């Protein structure tokens, strides 16, 4: 049966999911498709159970974030049996991609502004007991434009650099300071490993974070512990 197949362009192949740029509903509506393919090594019953569970929990988390005003992609459509989530296409680039260029071009104010926004967004996430689970600089997008108007329309509008969190596939609800501190630690590691000149910049992220909610101090304290042991505990034989 002929279907009006939406073209798919593979943009990322992770361990768990394939990510495509595609369209949803109409050819004019760009969308991101996150597909968790079958894992042939897993028992089919377990595979289906896990795929469904993960699709649903990621969807719930994204929806919860949007409800709280935390900038994440909107979910359009979920087929949990096939392991597919269609979501809003975020036009822009990751912090990882833009940061070095910004620094090289001496756009200091923009960089500072970005760091502050990043700290605030992560703070809002944690304030609401949501943990990202894989908070790298690749998973924080900066967009300078977005679709304006309604879904079926197609005009773009310029906006002030806006920070959007993506890929909450490993995210979860947690009240634990440890989990939140690990989020920060992962972000810090990502910063230092890809932008060696950005050591002081991450401090700006933390400053904004610390000033954003009441529990932040305790998380920061925990971060110091996590840094000390490099997240890992000593190992019994």
């Amino acid at each position, binding site marked *: 049966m002929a279907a009006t197949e939406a073209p798919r362009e593979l943009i990322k192949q992770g361990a768990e999911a394939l990510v495509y740029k*595609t369209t949803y509903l109409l050819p004019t509506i760009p969308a991101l498709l996150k597909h968790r393919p079958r894992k042939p090594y897993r028992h089919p019953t377990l595979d289906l159970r896990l795929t469904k569970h993960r699709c649903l929990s990621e*969807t*719930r988390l994204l929806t919860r974030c949007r*409800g709280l005003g935390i900038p994440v992609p909107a979910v359009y*459509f979920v087929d*949990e*049996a096939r392991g597919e989530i269609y979501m809003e296409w975020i036009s822009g680039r990751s912090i990882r991609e833009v940061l070095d260029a910004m620094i090289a071009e001496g756009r200091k104010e923009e960089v500072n502004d970005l760091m502050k926004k990043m700290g605030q967004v992560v703070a809002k996430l944690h304030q609401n007991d949501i943990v990202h689970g894989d908070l790298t600089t690749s998973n924080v997008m900066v967009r300078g434009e977005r679709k304006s*108007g309604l879904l079926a329309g197609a005009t773009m509008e310029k906006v002030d650099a806006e920070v959007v969190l993506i890929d909450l596939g490993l995210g979860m609800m947690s009240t634990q300071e440890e989990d939140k501190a690990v989020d920060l630690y992962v972000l810090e590691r990502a910063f230092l490993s890809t932008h060696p000149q950005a050591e002081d910049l991450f401090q700006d992220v933390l400053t904004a974070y610390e000033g954003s909610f009441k529990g932040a101090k305790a998380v920061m304290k925990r971060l110091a512990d996590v840094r000390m042991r490099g997240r890992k505990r000593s190992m019994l034989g």
Partner: protein
Amino acid sequence: MAIHTIQLQNIPVAHEVHIVSFKDVENASFLREQLLGGNAEFEYAFVDASTIVSTAHILVAVHQAVHKLLVNEKLRTRNVHSEIVFSLSPNNNITEAFRRFGIGENTKSLLCVKISSPEKTISAAEVEKHLMESVKGTQMEFNESTIAAETDWANVGKCYKMKGCKEISKEVELEVLGKMVMRSVG
């Protein structure tokens, strides 16, 4: 012709979607009786247009219902057309979904949706002809401004538990769609 025929992404061509919209409808109760009586000629999704906020809003509901049909997931309602009405709901109460989003005694503005199928191909002309004969009202174009003109925000607020919305915006639209998605995933 004011009938709007759409092929949704990733949906077989044979399941093309026909949409005709009307305002100032005078025979809503007749149309509703045909549905309740199971009159096969009236197998449509009759949606009360005052609950619809944008073109994508109704298309998302159509997509959800047809997709369910195609992947052989059990429909929660009688057929793909009633499933469209149910798909608009933010919760799993079917009776309430029909009452809120489906055609009622006093419905004045109406979206009629017909899904063609490989077994029973139906053309845009056939759909439009039958609806023009059956619905007493003024036919409208199907676009954002005609939809927006018929939206009853008090009603939308009640249906989707959203307070204080008075007009459509990108955020409001996504909020409504988000509630439909959450219903679909249980």
